[in-house]
C-alpha cells in the first residue's frame, strides 16, 4: 500500500521526443506503455522504451492477453510478454477482465464476459497460468462494456472473487466504471464500495464520448468533471493509489496532459489534507 500517491502518463508516439530529449525528465512518477507495441524483436520501438526506462519506472499495460477466453491463454503471447517483463522490469503488469480470442479468431477488442461461476473458473485458471508464466502478480482492469450479459454476480463481486482465488491485484479504471454504470444502469459508488480496496494498486483516468445509444470509452478528450468526481470518491475509499491518465486519440501537447495530471495531484492532495 502506498503512503503517498504517484502519478503517471501513458507514453504515446507524439510525446516520445518530450520524454527522451529534455534536459530534465518529464515530471511524472512513472509512464505506462501498451505492452503489445513493444513485444517485438528489435528496432526503434524497443530502443525508445529502453531509453525511457532509463529515466522513468514503466508500467506494462496489455490489451491482448484475453484472460476471459474459454480456450485459454496463448502460450506464445505469454513467452513474449515474459521476455519484455525481464528486459524492462516494470512497475506493474496489467491486462483486462475481458476476452478477444476464441478458436483461432482474435477480435482485437476488449469483449465482455458474463459474470457466471463458469466464467470465474475460466478467468481464474487463465490468470493463474499467466502469473506463473510471468513470475509475478498481475493487475486486472475493469473494462468498459456495452453489453450486460446475463450473469450470477456483479462485476465488482467477480473482481473480488478473482483477487481472492488467484492473488492478483486490481487496476481500477474510474472512467470505465462511469461508462459501464451509465450504459447498464448500476450505481458507480456501489461499485466502488464493493471492490476489495486493498487490492487496488493503480487507477486509470480517461475521457469518453456519447455514442448514439451508449457512452463509449474513446480516450479522445480530457477527463470530464463526472470522472474527476468519481476519482475523488475512489480515493476516499482506497487511499493513496498510483494514478495515470490515458489518452489515445486527438492527443494534445504533453503540457496539456501534465496539467490534467496536476488536477489528479490536487484532488489527491486535498483528500490527504482532509484525512489528516
Amino acid at each position: 500500500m502506498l503512503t503517498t500517491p504517484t502519478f503517471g502518463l501513458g507514453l504515446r508516439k507524439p510525446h516520445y521526443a518530450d520524454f527522451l530529449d529534455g534536459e530534465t525528465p518529464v515530471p511524472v512518477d512513472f509512464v505506462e506503455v501498451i505492452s503489445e507495441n513493444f513485444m517485438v524483436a528489435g528496432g526503434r520501438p524497443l530502443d525508445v522504451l529502453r531509453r525511457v526506462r532509463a529515466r522513468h519506472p514503466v508500467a506494462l499495460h496489455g490489451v491482448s492477453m484475453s484472460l476471459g477466453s474459454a480456450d485459454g491463454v496463448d502460450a506464445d503471447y505469454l513467452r513474449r510478454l515474459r521476455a519484455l517483463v525481464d528486459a524492462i522490469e516494470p512497475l506493474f503488469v496489467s491486462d483486462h477482465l475481458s476476452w478477444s480470442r476464441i478458436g483461432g479468431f482474435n477480435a482485437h477488442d476488449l469483449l465482455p464476459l458474463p459474470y457466471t461461476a463458469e466464467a470465474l473458473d475460466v478467468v481464474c485458471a487463465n490468470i493463474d497460468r499467466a502469473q506463473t508464466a510471468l513470475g509475478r502478480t498481475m493487475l486486472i482492469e475493469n473494462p468498459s462494456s456495452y453489453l450486460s450479459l446475463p450473469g450470477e454476480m456483479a462485476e465488482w463481486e467477480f473482481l473480488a472473487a478473482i483477487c481472492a482465488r488467484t492473488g492478483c491485484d486490481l487496476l481500477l479504471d474510474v472512467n470505465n466504471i462511469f461508462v459501464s454504470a451509465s450504459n447498464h444502469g448500476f450505481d458507480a459508488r456501489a461499485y466502488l464500495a464493493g471492490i476489495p480496496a486493498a487490492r487496488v494498486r493503480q487507477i486509470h483516468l480517461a475521457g469518453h464520448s456519447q455514442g448514439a445509444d451508449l457512452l463509449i470509452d474513446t480516450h479522445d478528450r480530457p477527463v470530464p468533471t463526472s470522472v474527476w468526481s468519481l476519482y475523488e470518491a475512489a480515493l476516499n475509499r482506497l487511499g493513496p493509489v498510483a494514478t495515470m491518465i490515458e489518452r489515445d486519440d486527438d492527443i494534445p501537447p504533453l503540457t496539456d496532459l501534465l496539467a490534467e495530471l496536476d488536477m489528479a495531484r490536487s484532488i489527491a492532495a486535498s483528500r490527504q489534507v482532509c484525512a489528516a
Partner: protein
Amino acid sequence: MSLYALQHGIRNWLTTENPAVATQCGARAPAGLSVYLNTYRGQLLDCLAESYPITRQWLGDSAFTAAAAEHIDRRPPSSWTLDAYPEGFAATLDALWPDDAEVAELAQIEAALTAAFVGADADPVDPAGLAAVDWDRAVLHLVPTCTLLPVVTNAPAIWAALAAEETPPAAAPLPTPAHLAVWRTGFAPAFRTLAPTETKALRMAAAGATFAAICARLAADHGEAAAADMAGHMLAQWLADGLVMAIDG
C-alpha cells in the same frame, strides 16, 4: 449457453453479422453489439490504412477502403498481435487486381519494410576488421532483417516516387523479373533492386555458403576474369548497405 458457445456466437456476429447471439446478450443487445462491430471493423480498417499508406495513395482512398473491407470479410484476424493482420493483404489485392500486379507488389514492399522496422537488432560489421579475414574460408552473416522479395513490375520505383511526394511513373512490367533486398540499417528500413547475379549470390550468402563458394559460382557463370570484379563490387556494396553483421574466417 456455455462461455465457449457465447464467445463463438459473438465471433459470428463480428465476422458475419449473424445476430443469433443477440438473444443471449441482454436487453440492450442491438446497441451494444453494434458498438463492438463498429470497433472491430474500424480498428482493422485503421490498421490496414496505417500499414499501407503508399498502396492507399496509389489506389485512392475509396478503392483502398473497399479493398480493406473485402479483406476484413475474407480474412478475420487470428494472431494475438494486430501487427500481424496486414500480412495477408497483398494476397487480397492480388485477387482484386489480377491484371495490375504493381498493386500487390506495393503492398508486399510496405509489409516487408514494416517487418524490417521491428526485426531483430544487429550492428553491421566494422570494415576495419576485414584485413584479418581469411577469404578462402570466410562466411558472411547477413543482418537478420535481410529478406528477398520477388518483383515483376516497377512497383519499387512507384513506391520511391510516392514516398518522396513526387509524381510516380505509370505502372509497367520489368524487362525481366527481379528481386528486392529489404533490410534495416540503424532504425531505418531500406530496400534495393538486385540484378539476377546479385540475387543468386546473396541467396548463397544467406544459406551459409563461403565467400569462396560464391566466387566459384560467379566464375562458373561469368568467367574467372569477371568474377573477381563482380565479387569485389558486391561485397563492397553489401558492406556499405549494412547488410553484413559478421564475417567468420
